[in-house]
């Protein structure tokens, strides 16, 4: 027997759940559909993360989401060459959102040798909504100029008072959707079938409801999933929330989570001693380090406001309610008190005993909400909280040791509370 065959057999790779396989297939299908559409001479689009997808979907237009693409690149730990290109040759500042830097560099590198694995067909137009942040606007303006393609813009208007959206603004929002239909019809040369539009709206609501059910499985104690798991399915809701393939994926995922609960198992590989509310986007390149560190302290993410950004609830057939949903659902487009209220409600509903905040260098708006809203959340809930510095897709803005210290410190606070019987 030689030395190699004497070595221990490698551990079998963990089985990929069927829902995840389906999600992977869905994203491969989307890229294929984009390529085929281009080959047929049809127009395809790139869209910002929470654009009213119902309209292009009903028109049969293929839409890709560059933020999701950048997140995927970072999660696969392949962001380095893109960040270097953006900051080096292209001369963009490191202060710009890393999703955007990766995307700009992708524009410059996509047809170069060595970048074949990054399949993401280039757009013929841009679909932009400013409900996620202001940087997206500059990003798309820049792309529009470089690629010489039009932008179709939905101005969601920042909300200072989401309960009191005045009528004139509701009309402004709704009329924009109507105009969007007209403009996209003209651009694609396709006619928008109202029946089909209604079907897509209904499908989007079915998917939202299913995703909600998935998220609510974490109400179980212990939760049958780690919150990081759900982050892996967000791209399904971002890119395909109006499609029936999403219905199948979410149904499967919901059933898998229920089955795990029934069997007393969980994808969280530790004992769930503490239930965490995670505020902010994930730190994609360090997902596994975050997870390992938190597992050691028995902390499982059971709730996150970020995940809820794609739960757009409205009445199919009622354009105004759809417009309103796009204006008020995303955490980045609501007032600080409302952001804090939603966070506090989730902390209570999901029985969280601590909060971890990702102070994201890229995403100024989420860092702003955190800094300004944190004390409001803590006043209401009284849970201990830590924040750490990171970035969703720039792997250089993170320190493993600092994350570990903060989590250990948080654990020690929680242990102290338990000892003195103060745990809520």
């Amino acid at each position, binding site marked *: 027997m030689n030395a190699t065959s004497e070595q221990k057999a490698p551990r079998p790779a963990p089985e990929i759940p069927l829902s995840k396989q389906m999600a992977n297939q869905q994203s491969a299908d989307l890229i294929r559909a984009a390529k085929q559409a281009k080959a047929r001479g049809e127009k395809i689009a790139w869209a910002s993360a929470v654009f009213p997808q119902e309209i292009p979907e009903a028109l049969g237009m293929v839409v890709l989401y560059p933020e999701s693409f950048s997140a995927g690149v970072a999660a696969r730990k392949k962001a380095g060459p893109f960040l270097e290109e953006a900051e080096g040759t292209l001369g963009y500042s490191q202060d710009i959102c890393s999703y955007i830097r990766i995307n700009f560099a992708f524009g410059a590198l996509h047809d170069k040798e060595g970048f074949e694995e990054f399949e993401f067909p280039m757009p013929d137009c841009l679909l932009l909504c400013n409900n996620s942040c202001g940087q997206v606007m500059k990003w798309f303006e820049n792309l529009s100029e470089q690629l010489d393609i039009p932008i179709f813009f939905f101005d969601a208007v920042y909300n200072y008072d989401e309960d009191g959206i005045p009528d004139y603004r509701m009309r402004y929002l709704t009329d924009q959707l109507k105009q969007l239909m007209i403009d996209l019809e003209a651009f694609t040369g396709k006619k928008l079938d109202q029946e089909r539009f209604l079907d897509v709206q209904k499908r989007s609501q079915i998917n939202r409801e299913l995703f909600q059910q998935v998220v609510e499985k974490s109400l179980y104690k212990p939760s049958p999933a780690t919150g990081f798991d759900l982050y892996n399915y967000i791209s399904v809701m971002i890119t395909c929330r109006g499609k029936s393939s999403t219905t199948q994926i979410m149904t499967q995922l919901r059933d898998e989570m229920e089955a795990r609960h029934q069997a007393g198992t969980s994808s969280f590989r530790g004992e769930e001693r503490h239930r965490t509310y995670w505020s902010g986007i994930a730190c994609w390149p360090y997902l596994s380090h975050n997870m390992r560190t938190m597992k050691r302290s028995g902390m499982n993410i059971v709730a996150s406001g970020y995940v809820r950004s794609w739960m757009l609830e409205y009445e199919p057939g009622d354009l105004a309610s759809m417009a309103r949903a796009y204006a008020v659902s995303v955490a980045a487009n609501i007032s600080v008190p409302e952001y804090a209220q939603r966070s506090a409600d989730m902390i209570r509903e999901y029985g969280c005993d601590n909060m971890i905040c990702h*102070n994201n260098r890229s995403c100024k708006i989420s860092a702003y909400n955190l800094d300004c809203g944190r004390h409001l959340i803590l006043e209401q809930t009284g849970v201990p*909280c830590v924040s750490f*510095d990171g970035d969703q897709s720039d792997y250089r803005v993170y320190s493993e040791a*600092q994350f570990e*210290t*903060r989590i*250990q*410190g948080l654990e*020690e*606070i929680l242990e102290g509370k338990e000892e003195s019987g103060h745990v809520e």
Partner: protein
Amino acid sequence: MLTLGIDIGSATSKVAVMRGGTVVLATALRRAGIGSDGPGAVLRDALRLAGCQMEDIAAVAATGYGRNMMEEADYRISELSCHGRGAHFLAPETRTLIDVGGQDAKVIRLDGRGRIMEFMMNDKCAAGTGRFLEVMAQVLGCGIQEFSGLAEGQEAAPISSTCAVFAETEVISRLAAGTPRGSIAAGINLSIAKRVGGLAMRMGVVPAVMMSGGVAQNASLVDMLGRELGADILVAKECQFCGALGAALLAWEKTRASGRKEP
């Protein structure tokens, strides 16, 4: 029962040896931190000063960024808990502890028993930390001890940048413009005081306020920070040993609670 706390930081290693969780037998410090021979050397120094051997120690707790590398440790505890417990030992009235170490600045809220209730730390960059101060001292061509004396009683020249890289350029151009070194040093202290003060005020400052870490020896900075916060700041003479003392104390508490036998 003898317990030992070792605090391995980025720039220094500190040890405290205690008896029965009340008496400090020895403290020792070396200006060499993680990845150097500092931790081993300081351990030997402290044992020698305490007049004992490693075998006499009932429990060792390690803290600081190098805590996980300390093989002899029975406990590895975050520097937050250790600093908190150390501050409580030095001044039980402490409710807000501001620790500025080599690599980070932290503000810790303590309860009446020295346990952490809440904390905030600076972000990943060196602004407002000992490292920032070291870089600035280098630019001014002096050691860190001399730096504090230099700044004493001087009018602060405005240093607007808290980024070590930008501040370095700013300091060089001030020197070139003929600004006295003392004013520049005071300006640097003020920029750190504002940064650390901001961190403390974000959490809320409950008196009594204590400052620990090597930077607490910089009297002009402590003074400025006190003015920023509108509070008197206690600085214990053992301010650099807060973490090591806390570790030794927690090692004692944990060992007692676990009923482990003394060697």
